[in-house]
């Protein structure tokens, strides 16, 4: 008898399907916009005015790094909690409630961004994903964002109360690993998203509504990055969870060490938030000492990632040897490379290693000056969120969608081609972006090639770099469309199958009993995380408010507009006329 997730938890499966499809829709739209950007910036094909580039860039960023990732992860965490606790959520109406809230938030944000290119929509939110001042968006953008984030908070509450109910029935049991991972991730998300909540509710929204005249730009920027870096780990931790709980199972083996996995998640809970200032190394209003603290905390975060690399690869080797693999490296041949779920996740992990190395450059206080605000950074995060996270999520879908629908994947070979195509496309694109950043090509601009100045690549030409980026972007978009096609045809065209594997996750070679119970003391780790945040942020925030005031020195907000003011144009022309 079949024992897939849909058979065990049919109600929850329906909600998770909804979150995953919301995520896939965002991926499709956001991915298409990425191609438009890539072709425009590289001057290969331009069919939008350059000022619309920023609307496209905002939508691309928000849809992919917020909507796609977070809708997917709330679904996966719901699977993780219910599967590992072997019980459904307490009240499915509440679960639908937070999903509805996130959806409403997404719609408000999406429509306000769309207003940048559709004249009939009287809104504008060309503020990029990093929406700190002096950019100002329509209030609907901020309200939508708040609704979305509060939706995730409620989702976390849903998982916590499911765990509390389980704990009541199992007082002496250790927290099952997938639930432990979901809860620790949510704890640092609660802590870090307070930053963006304060930024929006106390400053940006009242400013956008005209209730206050001005804001302190450095303060809103710092509050954004208080949230803006931990959000990276909010996307990444579900990918880590899948590497820990699914990759060993798909490899045919067991997780090498449950205690190591718990330590990794505890380290992320403690260290994720007090690092945001490493995005502000070039901000003049923050003293170097605070930046040094942020750098130190960031470098500590390498430890859990290196532990993860060790544990996951050791688990895969164990699986390969169970399948008959032998030798120092020949065991690699015994891994299930025909399985798109396994291959996609393995390639995502491999690319994450490269992203980690470029991340170390970003995190270094002195060497960051070489690459800050350049295309290098864009290349970096396309390896991390754009591959480690996105490719893992797509690959995992080849396992999850059958679990959630009871149907076989429409075409698994196409799935394999799709994940490999993503790997190749991202190789071309991110390599070229990194190289462009090294010779100083800026990010966040539709017109990177200044007049009267030429970039000097170390190898090749700017045209070659541009061609490589355009090729990579095209392959990535093709990969997204192959993925969506496979998912659509599986869901609407596939037939129900009894051959869907059981809904399980990897067992362990070394279980939770091999670690001290204190590892599961979530209150202790959360308290330490709060103390570290206070140490890292209290003095910088006090200094920023002291220097620039709580609401700023009275700057005028700049409202992005697609309508060109003729008087400003005339003034500019006069300025350059001899």
């Amino acid at each position, binding site marked *: 008898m079949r024992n897939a997730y849909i058979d065990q938890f049919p109600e929850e499966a329906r909600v998770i399907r909804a979150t995953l499809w919301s995520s896939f829709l965002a991926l499709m739209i956001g991915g298409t916009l990425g191609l438009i950007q890539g072709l425009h910036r590289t001057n290969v094909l331009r069919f939008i005015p350059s000022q619309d580039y920023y609307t496209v860039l905002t939508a691309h960023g928000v849809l992919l790094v917020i909507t796609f990732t977070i809708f997917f992860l709330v679904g996966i965490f719901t699977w993780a909690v219910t599967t590992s606790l072997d019980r459904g959520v307490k009240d499915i109406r509440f679960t639908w409630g937070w999903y509805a809230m996130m959806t409403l938030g997404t719609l408000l944000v999406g429509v306000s961004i769309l207003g940048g290119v559709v004249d009939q929509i009287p809104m504008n939110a060309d503020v990029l994903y990093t929406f700190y001042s002096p950019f100002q968006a329509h209030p609907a953008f901020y309200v939508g964002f708040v609704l979305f984030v509060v939706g995730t908070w409620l989702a976390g509450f849903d998982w916590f109360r499911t765990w509390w109910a389980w704990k009541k029935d199992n007082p002496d049991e250790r927290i099952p690993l997938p639930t432990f991972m979901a809860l620790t991730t949510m704890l640092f998300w609660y802590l870090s998203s307070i930053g963006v909540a304060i930024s929006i509710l106390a400053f940006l929204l009242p400013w956008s509504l005209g209730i206050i005249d001005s804001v302190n730009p450095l303060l809103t920027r710092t509050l954004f990055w208080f949230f803006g870096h931990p959000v990276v780990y909010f996307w990444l931790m579900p990918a880590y969870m899948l590497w820990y709980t699914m990759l060993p199972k798909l490899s045919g083996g067991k997780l090498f060490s449950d205690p190591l996995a718990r330590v990794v998640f505890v380290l992320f809970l403690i260290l994720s938030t007090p690092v945001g200032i490493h995005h502000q190394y070039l901000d003049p209003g923050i003293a170097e000492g605070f930046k040094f603290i942020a750098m130190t905390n960031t470098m500590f975060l390498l430890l859990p990632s290196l532990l993860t690399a060790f544990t996951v690869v050791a688990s895969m080797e164990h699986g390969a040897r169970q399948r008959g693999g032998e030798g120092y490296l020949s065991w690699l*041949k015994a891994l299930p*490379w*025909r399985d798109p779920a396994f*291959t996609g996740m393995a*390639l995502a992990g491999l690319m994450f290693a490269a992203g980690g190395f470029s991340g170390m450059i970003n995190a270094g206080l002195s060497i960051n000056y070489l690459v800050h605000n350049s295309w290098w950074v864009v290349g970096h995060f396309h390896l991390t969120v754009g591959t480690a996270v996105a490719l893992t999520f797509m690959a995992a879908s080849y396992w999850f969608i059958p679990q959630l629908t009871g149907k076989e994947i429409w075409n698994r070979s196409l799935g394999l081609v799709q994940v*490999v195509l993503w790997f190749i496309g991202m190789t071309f694109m991110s*390599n070229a972006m990194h*190289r462009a950043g090294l010779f100083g090509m800026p990010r966040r601009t539709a017109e990177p090639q200044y007049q009267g100045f030429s970039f000097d690549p170390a190898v090749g030409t700017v045209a070659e770099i541009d061609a*490589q980026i355009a090729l990579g972007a095209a392959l990535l978009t093709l990969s997204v469309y192959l993925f969506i096609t496979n998912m659509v045809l599986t869901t609407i065209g596939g037939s129900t199958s009894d051959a869907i594997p059981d809904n399980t996750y990897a067992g362990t070679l070394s279980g939770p009993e091999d670690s001290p119970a204190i590892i599961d003391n979530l209150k202790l780790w959360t308290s330490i995380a709060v103390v570290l945040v206070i140490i890292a942020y209290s003095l910088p925030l006090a200094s920023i408010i002291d220097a620039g005031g709580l609401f700023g020195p009275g700057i005028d907000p700049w409202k992005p507009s697609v309508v060109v003011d003729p008087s400003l144009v005339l003034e500019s022309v006069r300025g350059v006329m001899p």
Partner: protein
Amino acid sequence: MRISKGGLLVIMAFLTPLIVELRTVLSWFGIRLSVVETGALGLALIVAVLIWALWPSNGDTEAKLA
């Protein structure tokens, strides 16, 4: 075949970053390859991997001979 079709596909994909980065690495030693030369080198590597993967291993050859 010495390797599964899935494994071969992944090796071919993995050649992409190797070839792309090889060009940069070679430039450090003063060897500057054009795009066409890099493509030719990549093609040669792919053909070499294909020959290795598709060439029957000793066991297979003996089995066929038997």
